[in-house]
């Protein structure tokens, strides 16, 4: 349903992209070069895939904090299988299977056993990090990488697009059909809005929550597969860099477009990647990147929160005893 608010939001998003793009372009002409735009899209592919998976979990109003740890374990599994001489599809399949397994465990624990999502996923994520040390005692794995062809995943092109970006677009298309053009998708949103009424309306809420967590795990491992392909080595801390950008992308997108969705997450990822890429071009050291992402995240949540905008409109701080 295309309505005027949506057009307005799209316009606001385009303006934001133009503003950020121009700001960086004026500081460094290299920002708009083909090479940089391609590396921006590569960066966006990795972050975007992880954020897409997380989107499903956020839509059903849950949290997944395990995906960075699960991604690390997926990376190490992938690296170990390649080093052991397995064919590439098996190795990638093995990595994704780790994501699926942990996603199913998370989903089962939250939906069936009724465990609290935040702490449970922190626990399973901790377990995954522990397991990821088993393969090589924590050293990074890069044997056989040249021979296996995994680097092609980063270097090849499909229909004029870099492989990682093509994968992101493909995943986004599948995700969009699943979430926005199928009955299942309506079920995800219904589960998030009111689980009880959704269940009584015949939505298999528990199964959908399990599916959401499973998707989050698989997508995190797919994202890390691309990262491993671009860096040429698997290491145990690979997943750590996924957490903040993924949450920031989902929440920034949801803030811009009113609710979490595939398109919103892609928009959020694009903005985050533009900013991180731009600041890297300006030679801002890597350890500031989390500060930038988190500041943007806090600002986005605060500005777009209805309570805060109401507060800004009234121009006066609320007194105690306000309704919750």
């Amino acid at each position, binding site marked *: 349903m295309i309505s005027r608010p949506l057009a307005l939001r799209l316009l606001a998003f385009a303006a934001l992209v133009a503003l950020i793009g121009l700001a960086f372009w004026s500081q460094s002409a290299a920002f708009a070069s083909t090479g940089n735009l391609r590396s921006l899209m590569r960066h966006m592919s990795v972050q975007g895939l992880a954020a897409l998976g997380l989107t499903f979990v956020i839509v059903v109003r849950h949290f997944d904090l395990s995906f960075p740890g699960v991604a690390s374990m997926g990376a190490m599994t992938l690296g170990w299988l390649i080093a052991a001489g397995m064919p590439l599809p098996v190795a990638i399949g093995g990595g994704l299977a780790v994501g699926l397994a942990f996603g199913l465990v998370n989903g089962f624990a939250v939906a069936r056993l009724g465990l609290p999502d935040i702490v449970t996923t922190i*626990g399973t994520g901790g377990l995954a990090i*522990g397991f990821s040390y088993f393969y090589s005692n924590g050293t990074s794995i890069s044997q056989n990488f040249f021979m296996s062809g995994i680097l092609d995943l980063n270097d090849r092109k499909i229909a004029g697009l870099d492989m990682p970006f093509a994968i992101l677009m493909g995943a986004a298309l599948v995700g969009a059909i699943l979430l926005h053009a199928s009955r299942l998708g309506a079920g995800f949103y219904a589960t998030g809005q009111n689980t009880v009424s959704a269940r009584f309306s015949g939505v298999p809420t528990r199964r959908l929550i399990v599916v959401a967590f499973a998707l989050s795990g698989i997508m995190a491992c797919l994202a890390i597969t691309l990262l491993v392909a671009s860096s040429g080595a698997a290491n145990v801390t690979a997943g750590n860099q996924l957490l903040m950008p993924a949450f920031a992308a989902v929440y920034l997108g949801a803030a811009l477009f009113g609710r979490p969705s595939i398109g919103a997450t892609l928009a959020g990822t694009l903005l985050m990647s533009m900013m991180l890429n731009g600041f890297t071009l300006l030679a801002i050291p890597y350890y500031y990147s*989390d500060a930038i992402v988190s500041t943007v995240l806090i600002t986005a949540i605060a500005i777009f*929160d209805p309570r805060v905008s109401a507060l800004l409109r009234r121009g006066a701080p609320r007194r*105690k005893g306000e309704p*919750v």
Partner: protein
Amino acid sequence: MTDLTTATPRLRAGRNSREALMRFAFFLLVLAVFVIFAILRPTFVTPGNIHGMLMSASIGGLMFLGLTWLIAAGEIDVSFMSVAALSNMVVAGLVLNGAGWGLAALGGLGAGIVFGLLNATLVAVLRLPALVITIATGALAASIAAAIGLGTSIALTGTGFVGQLLDLRIGVLPLIAVIVGALYAASWFVQERLTFGHYIYAMEQNRAAVVEAGVPVNRMLFLLFVLSGTVSSLAGVLLAANLSSGQPYLGASYFLDGLTAVLLGGMALKLGKPNVIGTLTATIFLIGLLNGAALLGWTDSERQIVRGSLLLIGVGLVVFARTRRKA
């Protein structure tokens, strides 16, 4: 629904002996594990090792105190360990640039209070979602901590008066353990004997009802977040002297331990409600377990798996105990 249990825990304990066993099962488990370690590795109970463990437990216990109350009130703070890392780096950075330890410690404490106020404003005043906000503020604190050391740790030559404080000891008992113990005793009194503590428990059970009852919930949440930032930064200041360095990435190891201590500790005495005695016991348990496991030659990854499993067991037990009580 279950409000009565908080007011009269002792009555219920007497009524149901199986529940009483569950209440104290955790203490028995801690005792059993420590005795096994002592038999397998006699070095576990040497004065030096006990002193070291008590020191670590004191610093950890200090860091997890604010978190205990926040989780007991049904909120969450995942920025505590990064705030500790930031305070740790602020102290190290100031000392390295020639400031005295007094000023540096104040600076570290100030950084923690600032982040406590930031969390409190965003979550308690603006009522934004606590998890995402504290993920973000935690990342901000960690990022600043790394920026202070330009991405690496800062080695310190002296440890100033904070180091002297940590060195004071009564036999195997570090003075800091006595101080933290006293702090925990005071917190126990506040949480279990004063109305403030009862409001904390009540907030977790039914926030709307507590608001209706006229409790200034937002002001309490504000206080709890500031408290969490403050005690985390105190722990960070102590760590600067204890490690005689500033470690920007020290947060990672405290993250799982903090949540595990609070949730596992919640099983002791209160059957699923985070409380300070439980947190302190669980902190000592975790420190002892990791120390004993190291003596037995376990690898880091095995210890990480034990941590993760314990957290999951803690969560599982909390939920199990609650559903059983409701039934």
